[in-house]
């Protein structure tokens, strides 16, 4: 059964990168990828309902408008059980600390190690929220 992943990043090439990195999984129907270019767009998509079942949100931190950490708080308020992973080029202690304080499932620094990410996703889909 397929599950969904929502990727939120203001750089559109991130979507292309995920599409290519997950080309086998999407072809096999393991995952369905959804993309949003801002936190606001991500929240809209979330409110509109994402099918098949959404198992995780991957969000950038530095974005124009609402940033990733604010988005994280908002999602944790409305959907406390939905895992959110923060993905950022800025792997400093302060962002890391705040991400974990707000309840992020994990903190991933760019460049993303896709093997590690896929292993984490397999764990999540084995025990969907």
């Amino acid at each position, binding site marked *: 059964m397929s599950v969904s992943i929502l990727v939120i990043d203001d*750089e559109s090439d991130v979507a292309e*990168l995920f599409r*290519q*990195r997950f080309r086998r999984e999407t072809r096999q129907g393991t995952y369905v990828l959804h993309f949003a270019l801002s936190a606001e767009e991500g929240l809209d998509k979330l409110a509109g309902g994402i099918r098949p079942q959404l198992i995780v949100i991957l969000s950038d931190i530095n974005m124009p408008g609402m940033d990733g950490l604010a988005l994280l708080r908002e999602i944790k308020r409305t959907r406390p059980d939905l895992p959110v992973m923060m993905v950022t080029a800025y792997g*400093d*202690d302060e962002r890391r600390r705040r991400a974990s304080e707000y309840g992020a499932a994990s903190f991933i620094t760019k460049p*993303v190690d896709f093997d590690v990410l896929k292993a984490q996703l397999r764990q999540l889909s084995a025990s969907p929220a």
Partner: protein
Amino acid sequence: MPDAFLAGRPSYVDFFRYLAERGEYSADLEAELSRTIEDTRREMRFERTRPDGRVIEVRRNPVPGGGFVLIYSDITERKRAEEAIRGARDAAETALRDLQTAQASLLHAQKMAALGQLTAGIAHEIKNPLNFVNNFAGLSVELLGELRAAAAPAISALDDDRRAEIDETIEMLTGNLAKITEHGRRADGIVKSMLAHSRGTSGDRQLADINALVDESLNLAYHGARAQDQNFNITLERDFDATIAPIELVPQDITRVFLNLFGNGFYAANKRRQKMADAPFKPTLRVTTRERGGAIEIAVRDNGVGIAPEHREKLFQPFFTTKPTGEGTGLGLSISYDIVTQEHSGTIAVDSRVGEYTEFTIRLPRAGTGARKDR
């Protein structure tokens, strides 16, 4: 002057002698006298110090119709005040010079800190696009492999010439992507070094034995250099002060400084060996540690090619390097400078003679005793 003496209507010469006996004049009385009476129409002014220490100003004003008036004033207080003013002015000038020196070194430190921040800022900006380059290059290698596998049956059906052409193209594409990946990784390494500038004071301070830290870094640097170049060799001299008490610092950052300095020393000493070709020369690196009361000092001295005077000013600037392209990033010393001066409130000084030696001296104040640079 006593009335009795004046009542006798003394001549100017008598008058002069009277004053001389009282100690008004210096040793050569006759010479002074003849000079004084030479031309009585001229206005004169002189000062003398009496044996009792009082300073007297003597003014001689000619009066119309001949003769003159002598005015004696005690100017001891004025002199003392002038002396005090002169002393105060000298002190102020010294203070100003000190201030200018401090300002210059502060400006230098600020410039270096700004350069460090700029470097880290640039690194952040480059990191994102570079990640895309590396990621897509890696992906393309995979995609090309898949394409090759998928197209294999079709390609094998082609005639030899066409097949050779396609194989060659795919091979070149694969090679190009490997090069993009390789150089991307190199750029990534540089970006990581640049980012080291922005870490500021995030490191954990702990009490450390500086001699053990130096020794460990020396071994690390030595074996690292040997691993890179089988022919590399150098004599290591350790002159450690065993009385140094543990000091609070960020061990991994200070180790990084040592590795940079030792690596540079190795490089310089071996460059000199290469230059001297056949002449007997023993590349040597000596590390000295000393307790300086409230601070410790670590000196790293190599007998290498030395640093040209025109390079000395730029030594700690990011990206300044004299090594050939690809061999050095020019970030080692600028990061070391940040770590020593910003993170540890210490100083790093360099002394060198071209063709003879280079010596870096690091001074690390003990916590609470050093003047903190940050406000």
